[in-house]
């Protein structure tokens, strides 16, 4: 296809932007895959923005490689659009058809300009079809990547939420661990705990493992690492919630935890922590049963 035909499509698009826009938005609103996640007004705005960027890019003449610098603006816009749609709860096919639905209005325009059914218009349609396919796939992939990023962030949020550090008393913080203590979890527990020790100026940290179903050598290593890190911060660490079956398993595995202060119950650990920080708990005699 001659270059002048390509630029003429670009010029044509610029001159009839309003017309294409109306057609295109119409297509999108009619799309059976459309959810209500994206309101019409923002759909119209994005469509208008894309038409300007697209028209500018094809003006530069590179219709083969969408990874080229000429297409950077288009790629940037499409990946931002995908990211915001992933957050808004659009479906992948709805997001990809943002681009695919441009085919019909664009091809109608080409036919109108170059005459339907002749070589020039068929060639133009084939070329622009490829361009839009590439951009559509790019949008689809961006959408997937955004979804994955959202999922990863949610997983991280969940991890953080499930490992809260609690200030029990002046100078005493505690982390009730629930679930499997894998490497990712340990990292988060450690970061949160060390930060809390600094923030609250704590001298004792209690790690409660009542909610940890099994302690194998890996879990034990993670616990030992966490205890060492709290010591480096100048705080003592007490591991509590060691149930009888866990104690026996640790002994059979041959894990040496002599260096670590352990308590069967969290309440024992709290008492110990209070004592170490100079507090004592006294029961009012009149309340004794």
């Amino acid at each position: 296809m001659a270059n002048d035909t390509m630029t003429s499509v670009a010029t044509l698009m610029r001159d009839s932007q309003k017309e294409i826009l109306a057609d295109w938005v119409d297509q999108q609103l009619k799309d059976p895959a459309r959810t209500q996640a994206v309101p019409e007004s923002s759909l119209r705005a994005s469509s208008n923005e894309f038409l300007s960027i697209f028209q500018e890019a094809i003006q530069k003449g590179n219709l083969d490689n969408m990874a080229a610098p000429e297409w950077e603006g288009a790629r940037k816009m499409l990946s931002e659009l995908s990211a915001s749609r992933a957050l808004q709860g659009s479906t992948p096919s709805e997001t990809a058809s943002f681009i695919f639905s441009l085919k019909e209005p664009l091809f109608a325009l080409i036919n109108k300009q170059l005459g339907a059914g002749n070589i020039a218009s068929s060639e133009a349609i084939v070329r622009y079809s490829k361009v839009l396919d590439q951009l559509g796939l790019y949008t689809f992939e961006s959408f997937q990547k955004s979804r994955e990023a959202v999922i990863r962030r949610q997983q991280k949020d969940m991890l953080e939420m499930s490992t809260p550090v609690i200030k029990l008393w002046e100078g005493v913080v505690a982390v009730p661990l629930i679930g499997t203590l894998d490497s990712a979890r340990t990292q988060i527990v450690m970061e949160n705990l060390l930060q809390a020790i600094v923030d609250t100026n704590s001298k004792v940290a209690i790690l409660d493992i009542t909610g940890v179903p099994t302690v194998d050598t890996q879990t034990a290593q993670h616990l030992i690492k966490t205890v060492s890190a709290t010591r480096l911060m100048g705080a003592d660490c007490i591991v509590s919630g060691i149930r009888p079956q866990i104690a026996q398993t640790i002994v059979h595995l041959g894990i040496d935890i002599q260096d670590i202060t352990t308590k069967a119950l969290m309440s024992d650990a709290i008492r110990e922590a209070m004592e170490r920080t100079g507090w004592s708990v006294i029961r009012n005699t009149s309340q004794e049963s």
Partner: protein
Amino acid sequence: MVVKSQESRAIKNEDDIAVVRSSVKRVVALLNFSLVNQTKIITAASELARNVLEHGGGGEARIELVDEGDRVGVRLSFEDLGKGIPDFDKAMEDGYTTGKGMGLGLGGAKRLMDEFSITSNSPSGTKVSITKWQERI
């Protein structure tokens, strides 16, 4: 000895180890093992499954319910086609590790269970089988 039932679990990643643990947990709860013994078996399974993943490059766990008339039990086999173990005695030693572990997994699994056997797979790889028994009630 009669094998009453068996199931297999692939071990390809960290999540699969958790799957092995929960499958073992379901089976041992079925056999009415005490809580202490359940925990021992699940922990031993966790160790050997992690060895398959970390040292054997992945493999499979087989969980079997076995019956010997006056007693029933659970037999767990862990198989991989990895580099194998050149010296069993050394590998069994507490504290011996070629990785970053504590070197307690194999010895620990042996102490946690009633029976323990380790064999070389041909042409390469490792197979570890462990069994725990329970008097029939």
